[in-house]
């Protein structure tokens, strides 16, 4: 089983987002970078499948040279190969990103290496939340695709994938090769082992530089939404605050 798992480098945002002075980007001077949570689960799922069925996992990202850090993080989780689609740091939209990923998959198929049986994505990136790269890649490659998946099982050239919809379980049958985007909760990603980290540090990362293309959707600026509330009214400290808390709950009508 040859699996491609795609991840996106995103700022590690904590208590608040800070926008740069020119209003064009998230200020990352004080934050590190990580991959979107859904994508970390995509990599974990890929590693678990290969542990069961054999084969190899290639992790791919599209981003600046520094995005190699995120690929090494994913190699440390157990992926075997890494491919960086290197950009000049400009923000790429979902259309161009999907085209670059589809191009990488096609090049692999043309190279004589075993083609990918499964392309895994996160359901949507933590930052832009475009919800479309996996589906655009599938269309470009004429592959079946399903998104939002919380359970995936493989059997005899096919996959069964499930997700929740309005409290119901929806199940999809797919023939391989296929594209699947997953959501956090499909598994619990492992922490990287020390040997895994050491192996990742030395691993070779393949680099390809795709051509940027403009998109029909263009960001003109970023801003923070208006704060709806200020600071909380402090009811008190420790257990001394309990009577005030009970009175509040009573006032809110949640005490029966």
């Amino acid at each position: 089983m040859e699996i491609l798992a795609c991840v996106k480098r995103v700022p590690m945002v904590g208590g608040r987002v800070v926008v740069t002075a020119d209003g064009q980007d998230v200020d990352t001077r004080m934050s590190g970078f990580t991959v979107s949570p859904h994508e970390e689960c995509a990599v974990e799922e890929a590693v678990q499948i290969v542990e069961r069925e054999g084969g190899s996992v290639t992790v791919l990202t599209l981003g600046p040279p520094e995005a190699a850090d995120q690929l090494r993080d994913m190699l440390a989780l157990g992926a075997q190969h890494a491919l960086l689609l290197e950009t000049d740091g400009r923000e790429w939209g979902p259309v161009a990103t999907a085209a670059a990923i589809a191009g990488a998959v096609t090049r692999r198929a043309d190279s004589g290496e075993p083609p990918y049986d499964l392309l895994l994505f996160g359901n949507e990136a933590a930052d832009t939340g475009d919800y479309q790269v996996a589906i655009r890649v599938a269309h470009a490659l004429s592959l079946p695709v399903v998104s939002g998946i919380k359970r995936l099982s493989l059997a005899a050239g096919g996959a069964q994938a499930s997700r929740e919809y309005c409290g119901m379980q929806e199940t999809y049958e797919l023939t391989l090769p296929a594209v699947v985007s997953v959501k956090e909760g499909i598994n619990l990603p492992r922490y990287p082992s020390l040997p895994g980290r050491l192996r990742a540090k030395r691993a070779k990362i393949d680099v390809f530089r795709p051509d940027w293309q403009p998109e029909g959707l263009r960001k003109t600026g970023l801003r923070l939404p208006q704060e709806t509330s200020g600071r909380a009214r402090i009811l008190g400290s420790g257990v001394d605050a309990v009577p005030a808390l009970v009175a509040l709950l009573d006032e809110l009508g949640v005490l029966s």
Partner: protein
Amino acid sequence: MTVLCLVERDGDGVADASLRALSLARELAASAGGSVAAVVFSRSGGFGSGGFGSDGLGSDGAGPDGLGSGGAGPDGGAEADVPERELAAFGVADAYVVAAGAGYAPAAWARGLAELAVTCAAAAVVAAATERGSEVLAHLGALTGQPVAANCTSARWIAPGYWELVRQRWAGSLLEDAALEATLALLTVAADAVPAQPVAGVAGVNVQAFQPEIAAADLQVRAVESAERSGGVSLATARVVVGGGRGVGGPEGFEVLEELAGLLGGTLGVSRVVTSQGWRPHRQQVGQTGTKISPELYLACGISGAIQHMAGCLSAKHIVAVNTDPDAPIIAHADYAVIGDLSQVIPALVAAIRDRAGAA
């Protein structure tokens, strides 16, 4: 100018998220002097016997809607599928019932929308940013080669093929102003940020059936639904949610929070760190990658208030935080706070509520 709006159902009515999408679609159409037409997908997959040939699609159409072969004619069947009164209340004068095969097949729904957009010369297609709405519009974007603007909070027409919009990033913690250049504008609507606004003036809905050409490949990936899952109070719809975060300290600390949730007729929700540590299952996670909640009261205990968590609880009517750190970000989002150790405050609160109930 026509703006098509995908309408999803909730039982026999219109899903709340779709009412919000209709509200934004109406604003978008109004900015160009146009109107909104609703698009619903036939539940049975067809209307009448034509269209799908011998592949068996639509054969289960003689269901509760009275559709399918031998049922009402195309128009009669189509009308039975449409929640007309609700649509009219949201300013919809035209609706299309699209037959794209029984069940939900995202690529087939997208194909139906693509063909309908051509047939009625639509300038835009809008859908709620639900699981299905987002998925179908992504397919539609790929099919038509058009960009998709996801999670919009407002949008307006500027010139032919040119639109301006605001959309959410980071699940609403950040807003993006954007320009959209497209021959067919495709937008999903961030439902939690757009109110559902009814409008007077539409008396009735003109319902038309639409039969797209669906290829076999479009139906290859299709949902099979299983029985509804049972369970206690659903996190998404709970009236009270008691939240626990890193400050709970370990898996054993959640017992008292669950006890409190039970006393308040609510349920437990947790932050991402709790599920990443394996302390609680992921289905209890509140946040960007978990469940979005909108309770009357969210009592957040030992939760710092990272934006990814707040994105899941901003629709809570009242937020009460219990935290040892008066400078934690959650204090800036909460309405009320108790500064203190939850391992002391919550058991004392549980005891006080029990005393009160005993005294009553």
